[in-house]
C-alpha cells in the first residue's frame, strides 16, 4: 500500500502572519504543486511538514506515525529540499553522505552513488562550490539515498534557466516512478502544467484550492489561480464572473 501523508489542521501563528488550519492528503508516487505568491505561507507549511518547525497546532501523520509524537520516525520518511538546508559546505557530497547518512535507518551509500552519477554531481567537489541547481540536485540524491517516501521541495526551480528547469522536472518524474511522493512549492505555475497530479493553493496562510491538475486546464479555475498568483483579481470577482458566465450559457 502506498504511503500517505496527512496534514491535519496544521496551523501556526506569527505576530504578523497566520497559517490557518490546513488539511490535505498526499499520496506517494504523485506530485502535488503547492502554489502561492511570496508570503502566502508555503515555506512555513513545508518547514512544519518536514519536522524542522515544531511549534504548530494540528498534526502531520505519515503511515500512521504522528510528527508531534515521533518526529524522528517522520524525518526518516520525509525529506526537505530547500535553499535553507546547509549541509557541511566545506566537505564534498561523499563526506556529507558519510557524516549525515548514518543517522537514517534506510541509508544506502550505493544508492547515493547511483543517484549522484545519474544527476552528474561532482563527488569530489566541496559543496560551497556548487551552483544553486547543483545543490538542489545534491539534496535530491541525499533524499533518495535514504529511500524517503516524500520529498518536500521549497521553490526548487526559482532562478533556474529554462533548459535546466526542464531537466529538473524530468528528474522529478524519475523520482515519482520510484514511488516517492513530491510536494513542490512554486510561484511559477508553468512548472506544474505537465507533471503535477494535484494542486494546492495557499493565499495569506489559507488553503484556497485543493484540486487535481485538471484545475490548471480548466479556463475558469486557471483564471482564479492566476488571480491569486498575480493578485489582480479577488475571489469574489472571479466567482461572480464565473456565475455570470454560467448564466450566459443557460
Amino acid at each position, binding site marked *: 500500500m502506498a504511503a500517505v501523508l496527512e496534514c491535519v489542521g496544521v496551523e501556526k501563528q506569527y505576530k504578523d502572519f497566520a497559517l490557518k488550519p490546513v488539511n490535505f492528503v498526499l499520496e506517494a508516487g504523485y506530485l502535488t504543486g503547492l502554489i502561492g505568491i511570496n508570503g502566502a505561507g508555503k515555506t512555513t507549511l513545508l518547514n512544519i511538514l*518536514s519536522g*524542522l518547525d515544531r511549534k504548530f497546532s494540528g498534526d502531520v501523520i505519515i503511515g500512521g506515525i504522528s510528527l508531534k509524537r515521533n*518526529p*524522528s*520516525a517522520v*524525518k*526518516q520518511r520525509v*525529506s*526537505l529540499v530547500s535553499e*535553507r*538546508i*546547509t*549541509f*557541511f*559546505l*566545506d566537505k564534498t557530497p561523499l563526506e556529507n553522505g558519510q*557524516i*549525515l547518512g*548514518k*543517522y*537514517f535507518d534506510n541509508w544506502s551509500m550505493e544508492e547515493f552513488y547511483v543517484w549522484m552519477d545519474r544527476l552528474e554531481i561532482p563527488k569530489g567537489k566541496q559543496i*560551497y562550490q556548487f551552483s544553486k541547481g547543483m545543490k538542489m540536485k545534491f539534496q535530491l540524491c541525499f533524499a533518495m539515498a535514504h529511500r524517503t517516501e516524500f520529498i518536500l521541495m521549497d521553490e526548487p526551480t526559482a532562478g533556474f534557466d529554462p533548459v535546466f528547469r526542464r531537466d529538473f522536472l524530468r528528474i522529478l518524474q524519475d523520482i515519482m516512478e520510484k514511488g516517492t511522493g513530491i510536494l513542490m512549492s512554486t510561484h511559477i505555475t508553468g512548472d506544474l502544467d505537465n507533471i503535477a497530479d494535484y494542486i494546492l493553493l495557499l493565499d495569506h496562510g489559507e488553503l484556497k484550492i485543493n484540486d487535481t491538475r485538471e484545475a490548471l486546464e480548466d479556463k475558469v479555475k486557471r483564471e482564479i489561480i492566476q488571480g491569486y498568483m498575480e493578485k489582480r483579481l479577488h475571489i469574489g470577482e472571479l466567482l461572480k464572473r464565473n456565475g455570470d458566465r454560467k448564466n450566459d450559457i443557460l
Partner: protein
Amino acid sequence: MTYYKDEKKRIGVTYKLLVFGIVFINLVNLMSFTVSSKINIYGSSWSEGTGAIPFFSNDLLGGMVIIFLYMNHKLFWINEQGEKAFLPKKYEITPLTLKEIYGAKIRIMVNAVIVYMICSVGCYYFVLLGNRYPVMDFGKNIIEIAEAALAVAVFALFFLLYDFITYLGIERAS
C-alpha cells in the same frame, strides 16, 4: 549513542591534550608554591594559622574557563568559508533530536571537566602529602572541592544557555 561516539571521534584527542596540559602547568605552579610556602613556614616570618594552600585557586579556575571555552567552540561551532557556523544546524535534516545532540555534547564537555577536576584533586594531595606539607585543612578542602564543582555547574549552564540562545537566534533569523 552513535552520535555521542561520532562526536568524540570528530573532536579527536586535542581536548585531552589540553586538559592534561593545563593539569601539568597547574601541577608545576602548585609544586613551586608549596616549596616556597614550606620555606616560609620553617622561616622566622611564619605565624600560627597561616600557610594553608587553597585547592580552589586562580589556576584551577583559569584552567576550567579555558577548557569550557575550548570545548564549547569545538562542540558547537565550526569554521566554514571563513565564518563561524553553528554545528547543530547541520544535523537538522537528520532524525537526530535536539535532546540527543545536546545530550552528547554536554556529556563530552562534562566528562572533560570531571577528568580535569579529578586530576587536579589528585595533584593537590600528591604535591602536599608528597612534600609533607605541615599545614593541611581537609575540612576546608572538601568545601573548596564542592565550590569548584559548583563553579563547573555554573560555567556549564552559562555556556549551554549561550549556545541555546544563539541557536534560537539563528532559527528566528532563518
